[in-house]
């Protein structure tokens, strides 16, 4: 058995390793995607005062700290049986819209765009964000960094720090907004909305106008027939901050729609001995292994998963783009993994529209920031949509609000099985028997992985735009017979 080892996978937010086993003919036999690290937040949240958790759990991830802060803040509200005041809720949503704008902009330009703007098999030295800037102009590069900065500045203002935010208290937030600050946010939001529209235009001009790319998206080896998961509001429209989790099957039929505190009726997690990260699956369907189809409990919780699981978007421009996407790709649900990039831009548009609307909301500068607490703390679940998947925090406390137990299912974890399967499918289709793959082929394998924007990927913050691969071809005795790098 020959094998390909990619270790460490660089440009990841966290650590990762891919093992590709080849059969004797040189085709792909199996692929393992391993997470070699664990920190164990569930354990050391125990014993802490529950109101401290929103600040502690941001340290799970420095790329999506705001998601953990919000899911945790909501779980703490639930522990105390309290709802935030209208102003507090809007301030949280305002922060969260900025968090999405920042993350989705950076992912599209730094990671996704190089494959399409520069080309999937282009010279790797050019296939990065610098190459994108060369192709579309330096002014665009400056705009990308500027709008990422705008979004970071909004988060910093509301949350004390742009990364490890500290705004949530049980029943509300620690800090309000004054009129001058609101105006500043409104101006930045207007600019972000224009930039989101411009990003859709780039996707149109560069990707959709190119028949080859559309063909790769629709007919390439990038399709997985999975269940789709996402948070929706009462009208089944996509919502990042609140609502119920809806799962639809491969045909778009509703499998379930659950409130946060019902998650254990629908989701279970499995442990494999070869990865420190667990594998969630749909409980009612069951774990059938790394396989597709309606009989397998594997699901995706991604931008595309969210759009598939919804009936539309809550803002006009995003809704228009949502309709155009499904009209172009043959109706919902879409199972083409690379359509994730388009879905992410639809979400960027929604986040920017939502950001602007909230910045103009008449309640946003209100001074009623916290609902008084009257209940004895006990147990609570908080769910938000992280950029990289549905995020669940569940806490149990004693009557004094000291944490007894915590359970956390992180965004990317939902997609652990799906990522393994996407990699295997792409590798099997692209790495041909008898022909060692060149860098273009390896990049196209990697595109299957990158579409998920996995949280251990440095999706939002990498400057060069591709994940490097180093492939060693091992003879059955273990000697390296050939090495390909890019």
């Amino acid at each position, binding site marked *: 058995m020959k*094998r390909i080892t990619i270790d*460490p996978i*660089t*440009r*990841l*937010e966290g650590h990762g390793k891919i*093992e590709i086993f080849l059969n004797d003919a040189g085709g792909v036999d*199996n692929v*393992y995607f*391993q997470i*070699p*690290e*664990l*920190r*164990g937040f*569930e*354990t*050391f949240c*125990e*014993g802490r*005062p529950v*109101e*401290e958790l929103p*600040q502690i759990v*941001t*340290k799970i*991830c*420095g790329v999506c*700290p705001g998601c953990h802060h919000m899911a945790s803040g909501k779980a703490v509200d639930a522990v*105390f049986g309290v709802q935030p005041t209208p102003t507090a809720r809007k301030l949280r949503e305002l922060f969260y819209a900025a968090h999405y704008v920042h993350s989705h902009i950076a992912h599209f330009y730094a990671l996704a765009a190089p494959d399409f703007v520069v080309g999937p098999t282009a010279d790797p030295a050019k296939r990065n964000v610098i190459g994108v800037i060369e192709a579309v102009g330096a002014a665009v590069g400056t705009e990308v960094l500027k709008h*990422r*900065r705008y979004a*970071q500045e909004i988060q910093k203002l509301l949350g*004390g*720090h*742009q*990364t*490890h935010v*500290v*705004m949530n*208290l049980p*029943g509300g937030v*620690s800090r309000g907004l004054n009129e001058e600050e609101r105006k500043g946010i409104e101006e930045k939001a207007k600019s972000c909305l224009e930039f989101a529209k411009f990003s859709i235009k780039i996707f149109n001009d560069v990707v959709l106008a190119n028949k080859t790319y559309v063909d790769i998206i629709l007919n390439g080896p990038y399709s997985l027939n999975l269940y789709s998961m996402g948070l929706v509001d009462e009208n089944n429209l996509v919502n990042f901050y609140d609502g119920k989790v809806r799962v639809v099957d491969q045909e778009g039929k509703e499998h379930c729609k659950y409130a946060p505190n019902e*998650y*254990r009726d629908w*989701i279970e*997690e*499995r*442990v494999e*001995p*070869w990865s420190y990260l*667990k594998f*969630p699956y749909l409980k009612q369907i069951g774990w059938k292994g790394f396989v597709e189809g309606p009989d397998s409990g594997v699901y995706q919780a991604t931008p595309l998963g969210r759009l598939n699981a919804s009936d539309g978007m809550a803002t006009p421009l995003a809704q228009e783009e949502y309709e155009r996407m499904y009209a172009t790709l043959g109706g919902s649900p879409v199972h083409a993994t690379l359509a994730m990039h388009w879905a992410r831009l639809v979400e960027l548009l929604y986040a920017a529209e939502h950001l602007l609307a909230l910045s103009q909301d008449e309640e946003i500068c209100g001074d009623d920031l916290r609902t008084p607490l009257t209940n004895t703390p006990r147990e609570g679940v908080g769910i938000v949509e992280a950029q990289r998947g549905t995020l669940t925090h569940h806490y149990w406390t004693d009557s004094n*609000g000291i944490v007894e*137990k915590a*359970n956390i299912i992180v965004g990317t974890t939902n997609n652990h099985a799906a990522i393994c399967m996407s990699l295997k499918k792409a590798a099997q289709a692209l790495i041909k028997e008898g022909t060692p793959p060149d860098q273009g082929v390896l990049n196209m394998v990697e595109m299957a992985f990158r579409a998920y924007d996995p949280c251990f990927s*440095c999706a939002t*913050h990498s400057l060069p735009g591709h994940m*490097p691969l180093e492939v060693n071809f091992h003879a059955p005795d273990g000697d390296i017979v050939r090495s390909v790098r*890019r």
Partner: protein
Amino acid sequence: MNDSTKNVATPPPVPKKKLQMAVYWGAACGGCCVSVLDVHEALFLVLEHADLVFWPIALDTKYKDVEAMPDKSIDLTLFNGAIRNSENEHIAKLLRQKSKVLVAYGSCAHMGGIPGLANFSTKEKLFQRVYKDTESTVNPDNIRPQTSYTVPEGELTLPVFYNDVKPLDKVVDVDYYIPGCPPQTERLVDVFKLIVTGATLPPAGSVVGVFDKGQCDCCKRTKSDNKKIKKFYRPWQIQDDGETCLLEQGIICMGPATRGGCGARCIDANMPCRGCYGPPPDVADPGAKMMSAIGTMIDSDDPMEIQEIVKGVVDPGGTFYRFSLPSALLRRTVQ
């Protein structure tokens, strides 16, 4: 340029060797790497002065490439994240060997950080919770991740998960510490400027990228010299007035046991400091310092009443050592 120099030909700039720089993470969240990227548009300016030779978040360089570099060929390495497993330790030792200056960057490398709170527990308890007892986990066969496991196609390996979290200086010699969770980008830029201008660096072992004053001196809130309180409150039990020292209002704030450097950012957002910048220069142990600070504040001489007031400080261990347990005198709980 004045008149006398106007016509003098400008000599071509002497090609200066760029700073060879590496950034690496151990057990980390990525926030430290983000703090480097938060220079925003100035990133291109940084790249004019420095070649980044190893940075897994952004560059292709593999471990093997680092192994092939001559010893001491990297001028400056920023190591963020704690030492949680065998891979973290291996790379820490490798980078020590290859680097002239090794910096413990951020709270985790500096003191163990938030992941270091795991030292209140053990590896076995942690695995039992995560892989067996968590309420959504179904694992009747009690499967645990294995450092070596044979699948039908061959052997798969994982790093060894240690029982204890350690700060960087427990496994290698560290030249400097830049604290913070994450460090303020402005402080990093200060240190960076110092290095590229060739200024004399402080003695090895120094904490850099910080202010000379303590956190309380950076905090804008009004303070009295004689803090006295009758009761401690948790942040949700009281309406903070937004102006008075949080401790004086009875909210536990780590200001007295914390070095200045962040600009009191959390306090500016009306939330108490949790000490991510570590203790001030004259303080060996932040927990001991906080206990003494609180002791002097309690407004009572009655032992019973004092005991009652102190009860209001919930989770002193997890609060006073929020970021520093593995480097504190306490280091971990007895197993």
